[in-house]
Structure formats: structure tokens, C-alpha cells
């Protein structure tokens, strides 16, 4: 009890409150700018958190992520350009409302739905993470090894149309993650005689390069090609009923918001699915169950609520696998995991024993961030709307220079800036050739833990290759890994065959026409 009170008191210290507030505000602002998303913002701001305490840093980054999730809705509603992928479903109903002059009303609905989903999800996280972590403590190195293998396999399917390319990316990530000092011999490995690599590649330049800089390279490409055409926002109606959201209107979507929150929690708790899945699933369910399903896609407040409550609920619930098992479920959480490690903590069930006060402090910061999101969103909505129109000529130099200096900040080393540029180059090609950088990054982060677990298994079992067969949970997880690979391959083959049939039909049709 003392720990809980001490942790909560830490979370309401002036420094912690200030940085959570700043995190949410910057997050909403960044999320509102099309092309910059939550994980990218976390990668850019992790170097800044070097100079903060662990609680302040995590509170700031969590606030940033929560803010960015709502921020994505701003450009989705006003410009039909989702600031983040998960806000795509929000634009389906948000933009038609903007066209009707009700953009402000749509944004208010998005804000209140976001806060609802986020708050419900945070409460669920607080309620179940600790008891689940206590169960997870019974897992040994064999189970951890099997679990990481499963997580890498599941995550290999994210962000690419082919699991084989996902696995290649994950394999490459693991290889890069092994560069540095080998844990058993304490000798350098895969450094190619470059002495700066002796301590390994730091997460910050790798993440900034892959997530932020390569994205900017791609956006600049389109920007230069299209000539950087500026989009205009539809004028908002001056009528009060078109701008304000009444209690009746909000509570009419109560069931949808609750369902959306539950879908978001479920999807977020499962590694590899991510917020866009939650958002589309919730929208689909809302449309099927709504009395006014014909209004969906034409400016339904319920549609906005379904999408936003679900995607915001993912933010907190995706931390469940991180806190319980030490496995990041999505990219934003992988970046948060990196931040935990930078501040000397290894995410996982032991955190509740080793850093109990900090964990309760983080819980407090999560709840405070929800409250700040409501306040900041409510007061600053009009100003954030202006962020969507920041000229690209000003925005891109700022982001590029921040990437360069962010990579430098971590270890005050220009070598890290070079590493960042190298990974931006790799990231550019990975995106162009459809290789998942998400799988790469998670492989990179999990590689040391995976190897450590394997070393422990080998040493404890005294080279008994049947070790896994004596541990039913580990065996079950390995079987599940194989099942995921086989099932995904089957689905890929099926989809490939379908495409071939379609191609054959198109060819036959062309012959007939000729």
C-alpha cells in the first residue's frame, strides 16, 4: 500500500505533471501533422528523455503516444488525410461532417471518444497487469525463449504483404542486434574492427533512421513530385448546434464507445495486431449493430466514436504484454521498451517486484495523461487544427535537423548520426521493397533477450536438447510458433493463387476482346 501511495505521489510531482502535459500537447500537435505518427515522435523524443528521471521520461513518452493517437484524428477529420494509419476509419465519417461545416463537432466527438477508450483501457491495464505478471513469474528461460520466438513470428507479418519478407527483416534485425559485446565471453562480436561498435548499436539512431528519417525521405519524394500542393480546410459553420456536441449526441453512442474500447483492449493486448485493426474492427461492428447504419460513411458521429474509442484503447492495453511478459506488442510499445531499457529497467514481470513504486507512478501518469488529453484537446482544439497546415518547406527542415541532432544527443557522437543516416537508407529500401521495418526493429530490440534466454536454457539443461519437451508451456509456445508460420504461409499461398486466377481471368478476357 505504501508503494502505491508513494508511486502515485511521484506521479503528481510538479516535474512529472509538467512533462506529461508537455508530452500530450506535443503528441497532439505532431499527430495532427500528416505523415508524423506516434512511434516516430517517440523515436525523435527519446534522446531528450536521457536527461529526465525514469518516471518523468516514461510519463512524457506515454503522454506523447496518447496525444499522437488523438492528433491523428485532426487531419483525418479536416483533410481526409489520416495523420496516423489508425485514424483512417475516422476520416470516413469525420470528413463528410467537415464538408457539411461540422468539422468542430466531429473533432469534439473524436476527442471525447478517444478519452473514453483511453481511460477504460488504462483502468483495465492497472487492474490486470500486476496479477498476470505474478503468474508470468513462473516462466523460466525456456518459456521466455519460446515466447520471444512466437512474438517475432507473429510480428513478422506486420507491415508487409509477405511473411517470408517479414521473417527476413526480423532475422536481419536480430543479426544487427547482436553487434557489440557478446554476453558470455565479454568479447566483441560482428564489429568488423570498428571500435565504436564495441558497445553495440544504440536503439536511438537506429530507430530515428528507420522510423523518422526514412519516412521523411519518402514524403519528400512525393512532395517534390507533386509540387507540395497545399490542401485547404473547409470553412466551419457558425451555427452553435453545428459546432457543439450535446450530451445527448455523445451518450447516444455510449454502447458503441464501450464496445470500441473493449475491442481496442482485446486487440491491443495481443502482440502484432495494432491500432488500425482495432479501429476497423470496431467500425465494422458499430455499422453492423447500429440502428442508423445507413448514415455510416456519410458523417455519422457513431462511426467516429467507434474508430477513435478503439484505437485509443490500444495505447494502454498494448502495454499489457510489455509489463506482463516483456514483449512489445507494437511499434510504439517497442520504442517505449527501448526507453525503459535506456533508463536501466528491463520490462517484464520482474518490474513489479524490482520497481514497484515506479510502476505505480507510471500508472498514475497514464491516468493523468488521459485527463490532460481531455483538457488539452478541449482547450487547444482550434490551435491544433492550424498544425495541419504548417508549410512543408518549414516542417521538413525542422524534422530532418531534429533527427540529426536527436541521433547525436544520445551519446554525443557523430558516429551515431552516421548510423542514423545508414539506417535511414536501409529503411528507405525496406519500405520500397516491402520488407517490414517493424519486424526488423522488434527483432533488433529482442535479440539480446532472446540470446540470453537461449544461453540460460543451454547452461541449465546441460546441453539436453530435449529440454523443451520437458517444459509443457515452452513446448506449447513453440508449437504455436510453428502453427503461426504454417498458417500464414498457407494464407499467403492461397492469396497468391487467388491473384493468379484473377490474372488468368483478366488475360482470357483480354484475348476474347482482341
Amino acid at each position, binding site marked *: 500500500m505504501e508503494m502505491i501511495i508513494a508511486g502515485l505521489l511521484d506521479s503528481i510531482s510538479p516535474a512529472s505533471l509538467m512533462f506529461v502535459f508537455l508530452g500530450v500537447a506535443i503528441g497532439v500537435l505532431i499527430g495532427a501533422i500528416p505523415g508524423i505518427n506516434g512511434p516516430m515522435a517517440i523515436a525523435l523524443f527519446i534522446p531528450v528523455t536521457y536527461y529526465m528521471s525514469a518516471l518523468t521520461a516514461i510519463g512524457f513518452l506515454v503522454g506523447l503516444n496518447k496525444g499522437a493517437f488523438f492528433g491523428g484524428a485532426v487531419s483525418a477529420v479536416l483533410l481526409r488525410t489520416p495523420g496516423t494509419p489508425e485514424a483512417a476509419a475516422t476520416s470516413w465519417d469525420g470528413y463528410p461532417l467537415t464538408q457539411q461545416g461540422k468539422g468542430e463537432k466531429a473533432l469534439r466527438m473524436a476527442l471525447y471518444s478517444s478519452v473514453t477508450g483511453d481511460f477504460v483501457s488504462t483502468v483495465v491495464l492497472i487492474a490486470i497487469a500486476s496479477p498476470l505478471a505474478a503468474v508470468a513469474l513462473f516462466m523460466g528461460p525456456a518459456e521466455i525463449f519460446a515466447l520471444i520466438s512466437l512474438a517475432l513470428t507473429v510480428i513478422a507479418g506486420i507491415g508487409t504483404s509477405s511473411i517470408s519478407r517479414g521473417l527476413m527483416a526480423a532475422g536481419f534485425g536480430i543479426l544487427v542486434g547482436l553487434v557489440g559485446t557478446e554476453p558470455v565471453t565479454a568479447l566483441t562480436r560482428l564489429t568488423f574492427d570498428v571500435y565504436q561498435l564495441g558497445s553495440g548499436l544504440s536503439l536511438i539512431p537506429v530507430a530515428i533512421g528507420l522510423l523518422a528519417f526514412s519516412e521523411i525521405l519518402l514524403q519528400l519524394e512525393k512532395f517534390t513530385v507533386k509540387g507540395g500542393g497545399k490542401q485547404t480546410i473547409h470553412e466551419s459553420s457558425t451555427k452553435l448546434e453545428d459546432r457543439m456536441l450535446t450530451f445527448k449526441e455523445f451518450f447516444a453512442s455510449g454502447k458503441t464507445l464501450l464496445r470500441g474500447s473493449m475491442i481496442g483492449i482485446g486487440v491491443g493486448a495481443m502482440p502484432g495486431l495494432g491500432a488500425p485493426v482495432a479501429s476497423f474492427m470496431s467500425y465494422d461492428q458499430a455499422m453492423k449493430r447500429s440502428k442508423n447504419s445507413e448514415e455510416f460513411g456519410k458523417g455519422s458521429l457513431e462511426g467516429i466514436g467507434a474508430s477513435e474509442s478503439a484505437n485509443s484503447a490500444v495505447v494502454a492495453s498494448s502495454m499489457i504484454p510489455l509489463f506482463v511478459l516483456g514483449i512489445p506488442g507494437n511499434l510504439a510499445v517497442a520504442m517505449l521498451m527501448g526507453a525503459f531499457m535506456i533508463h536501466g529497467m528491463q520490462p517484464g514481470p520482474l518490474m513489479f517486484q524490482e520497481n514497484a513504486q515506479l510502476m505505480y507512478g507510471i500508472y498514475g501518469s497514464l491516468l493523468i495523461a488521459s485527463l490532460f488529453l481531455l483538457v488539452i484537446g478541449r482547450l487547444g482544439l482550434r490551435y491544433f487544427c492550424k498544425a495541419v497546415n504548417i508549410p512543408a518547406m518549414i516542417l521538413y527542415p525542422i524534422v530532418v535537423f531534429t533527427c540529426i541532432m536527436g541521433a547525436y544527443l544520445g551519446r554525443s557522437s557523430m558516429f551515431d548520426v*552516421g548510423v542514423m543516416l545508414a539506417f535511414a537508407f536501409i529503411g528507405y529500401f525496406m519500405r520500397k521493397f516491402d520488407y517490414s521495418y517493424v519486424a526488423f526493429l522488434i527483432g533488433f530490440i529482442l535479440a539480446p533477450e532472446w540470446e540470453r534466454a537461449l544461453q540460460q536454457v543451454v547452461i541449465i539443461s546441460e546441453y539436453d536438447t530435449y529440454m523443451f519437451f520437458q517444459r509443457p508451456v515452452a513446448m506449447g509456445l513453440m508449437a504455436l510458433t510453428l502453427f503461426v508460420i504454417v498458417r500464414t504461409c498457407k494464407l499467403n499461398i492461397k492469396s497468391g493463387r487467388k491473384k493468379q486466377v484473377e490474372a488468368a481471368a483478366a488475360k482470357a478476357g483480354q484475348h476474347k476482346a482482341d
Partner: protein
Amino acid sequence: MTRIKRDSIAYLAIIGFCILMLTWGIPTYTPDYPGYGASPALVANVSVGIMMFMACLSLLNIGIAAYTNKPIPAEESEFPEDMEGDAGFTQVGRVKLKHLASTMIPCVLLVVAIEHVPYIFVSFIFLMVFQYVIGSRKWVQSIVVSVILTAVLYIVMRYGFGVPIPGPQIF
């Protein structure tokens, strides 16, 4: 070049990289087995093995499809145009090398120059060049952005975080 040809070349490049790592990179730059635990090269070999196996499998798949003369889906038989939609993840499309070089070269030059030229000058010049490269021709705006950004980051790094500024100092 079609997407399928481009993918095949990529798979071949990956296989080449894996062979190089397995025969030279990993054996040369990995410590010897200390006599206990797993070999330091084990996980590295496994990860490279996964990459190589998957690349061979994908290449084989393409080869079989070509040998049996199966129709190729339109999206793979044509040149990979930029695909929208997968925002935030991969963005399959043409590699625009000229654009890539014009954006990366100033950044690489910045990394090289900053060790020899004071930060204030080099970052100002970099920002001016970068804005020119991305198409900005409003000189006043470019100068204002460059000056403000250089000054803000200098102040934040030097006085906010107390981080040593890269390169020779003039202040």
C-alpha cells in the same frame, strides 16, 4: 523492370549477403566458443540462416511460377508504381535514386563537415542547402528558418542538456 524481377534481384542480393556472412563475417568477427553455454555464433548463424532460407524459398516460388508458365498477378508483372494506402508501413514503389541522393548527400556532408567547421556555420549552411534541395526559393523564409533552428538547437543542447556541441567551438 517488373516488380517480380526486382524482387528476384533483391532475393539474390540477400542470399549473397547471407553466404558472405556465413563464410566470412560471422566466423571472422565472432569470439571462439568458450567451452560452456551456446556458441557466440549460434544466434547469428540462426538469424542469417532464416534470412537465407526465406530468400531461397521466395526465389524458388518465383522460379516454379515462371517454369510452369503460371499467369503473374498484375501488381507484380508491372513496374512498381508508388502505392498509397499502407500509410505508416511499407510504401512499395520505384526507387528514385536521384531524389535519394539529393537528400542524403547534404546530410552526409554535414556529418563530415561538422567535425571541422563550427556548428553554427555548418548547420546554417546545411539548412539553407536542404531547403533549396526540397524546392524552397523564398530566401528570406529560408534564412529565418535556418537561423532560428540553428540557434534553438544550440541553446537547447548547450544550456538545456549541457551536451558538448560537435566540432570546433567559436562561442
